């Protein structure tokens, strides 16, 4: 599998979005899971809650660090991935598959245009992967 699939949109905070009609699936990228290392805990919002673009939606904790998850788009949470809460290792093994986080009903499809294309995301992680303070 490509580490940056071409059918997704990306945030600078390393979340991906797969839009299907007015429903979007959200997860974290291969690059993000690689930086985090083994994920040991995932905290996701309840079904029925709303998330706002670029604000915190939950927490992902690895053996190295705890990091906020940011919503790449706004909307109502219609499903959260219970499997990934029970088996956080799915985030590492299948970040674009069974390691997805939540599904939301899109509040504003126009927000997708504020996300990065696969090409832009590739150059984004090229920039931030170097040594030193970024």
């Amino acid at each position, binding site marked *: 599998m490509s580490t940056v699939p071409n059918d997704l949109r990306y945030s600078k905070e390393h979340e991906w979005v797969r839009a299907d009609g007015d429903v979007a699936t959200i997860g974290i990228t291969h690059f993000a899971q690689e*930086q985090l290392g*083994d994920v040991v805990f995932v905290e996701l919002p309840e079904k029925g809650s709303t998330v706002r673009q670029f604000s915190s939606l939950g927490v992902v*904790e690895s*053996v*190295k660090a705890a990091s906020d998850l940011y919503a790449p788009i706004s909307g109502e949470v219609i499903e959260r991935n219970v499997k990934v809460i029970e088996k*956080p*290792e799915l985030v590492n093994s299948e970040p674009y598959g069974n390691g997805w986080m939540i599904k939301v009903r899109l509040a504003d499809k126009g927000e997708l245009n504020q996300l990065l294309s696969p090409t832009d995301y590739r150059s984004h992680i090229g920039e931030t992967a170097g*040594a*030193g*303070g970024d």
Partner: protein
Amino acid sequence: MTAIRTQVVPDSGVKTAAPALEPLLSEIHEAGRAGRHVRGSEDADALIPNEFRRRASLDLPEITEPQVVRHFTHLAQLNYAVDTGMYPLGSCTMKYNPKVNDRIAALAGFAEIHPRQDDDTIQGALRLMFELQELLAKLTGMDAATLQPAAGAHAEFTALLVFKAYHSKRGDAARRRRVIVPDTAHGTNPASAAMCGYTVTTVKSDSRGNIDLASLKAALGDDVVGLMLTNPNTLGLFEERLREVCDAVHNAGGLVYGDGANMNALLGVARPGDLGFDCIHINVHKTFSTPHGAGGPGAGPLCVKAKLEPFLPHPRITRDTDGSYRRGPTPPDSIGRVRSFFGNFGVLVRAYTYMRTLGEEGLAEASNDAILAANYLLAQLRDSYDVAFDRPCMHEFVLSASRQRKQGASALDVAKALIDEGFHPPTVYFPLVVPEALMIEPTETEPRETLDAFAAAMVRVAERAKTDPASVKAAPLHAPLARLDEVSAARYPRLRWQRPT
């Protein structure tokens, strides 16, 4: 000794540890054994009302006294400690703790008193606390101190409550809801701000490892409570534009909190109160040499400028005109208590002893030696590892194992390999702005030959990462336990012993 291996419990997929090197007390239990035989008391039975009596058995292990002593001695022998070797755990200041500290803390006048005794019966203890308040305030360039906070993070929280009370007194608290932290901050800084109900704005570092002044200015506004800043910062670097940073925050009506975790670099050399900070906490368990680690106990006195003094927690110790000491009255604007009684008193006695033993000159010498030791190590390691920000460091420095990771051994692997070399590993993966971070703090208490031996071990591990990374990934081989399954431990923690069925 054989290395521990993990095994998979069928069906659950949960990994569990094989039998350990030292059994639990519950596992050596044998019914009927005891260290002391306690006679049943009918009086006690009569004293405890029926509804409060336990129905089920306590299920405590039954063991003899020598079994208990051997159990804990075995555990201590498996341990690695400052008393057994160098412990360069960055940000933790694992310096040697002089034994005289413990001796003084064990004196009956300190160890066998009760916090509910009348002030006139504990004058020595109160005097010690009063003088410690004064010493800490003087050393940090502040005007007043509280000894109550139980540790650094608790002191952060206390300081933010004091900030809130200060802004509230000025009628400014409602709009000031935002705390600024640099991206190098300890994780406790944003956590303390969140505990106070504040939102957090993170400001990035500049190319020299300082907080980025332009980004800070852009983040400031009349909704800012203040800035939480560590100096030297967690990269081990002195903030080069500190005065401008503090001025910018003050001009926006905010306050500057000093995270004193790295105070070991500044004792008697620079005073945070002179540098622009409004307050600073002191991890006395780090800087003033009391045993710590694995959760404490610690103590985090908070020192503040006069403008914040009215809001400090109470009670504080005061001296009357007749020279006697007492728990002072509660000022009307005090935020109240943050800790029962006097804080962790035994830790404070040890810190006081350390400060009085070294004196002002001795403390300055300790900081200068800590800085010298760190720079001496950095000079020996800069060719073998990438240096995050290559400029003279303070009491600690941050390397990156990025080069080694490309060769096949990560920062974690390097840390594990150092265990085989006989050293406690440095802090890894912090601060977050440095990939594959190795944060090294030798402290002032290591002789030069130990520093040389540690540097040689680090260089050997770097060589092995280049020529035989698999051997680094396999480490440790010579520790009581081989590589632990930290991932399963975090994912499927087993927190209580269960009797085998």
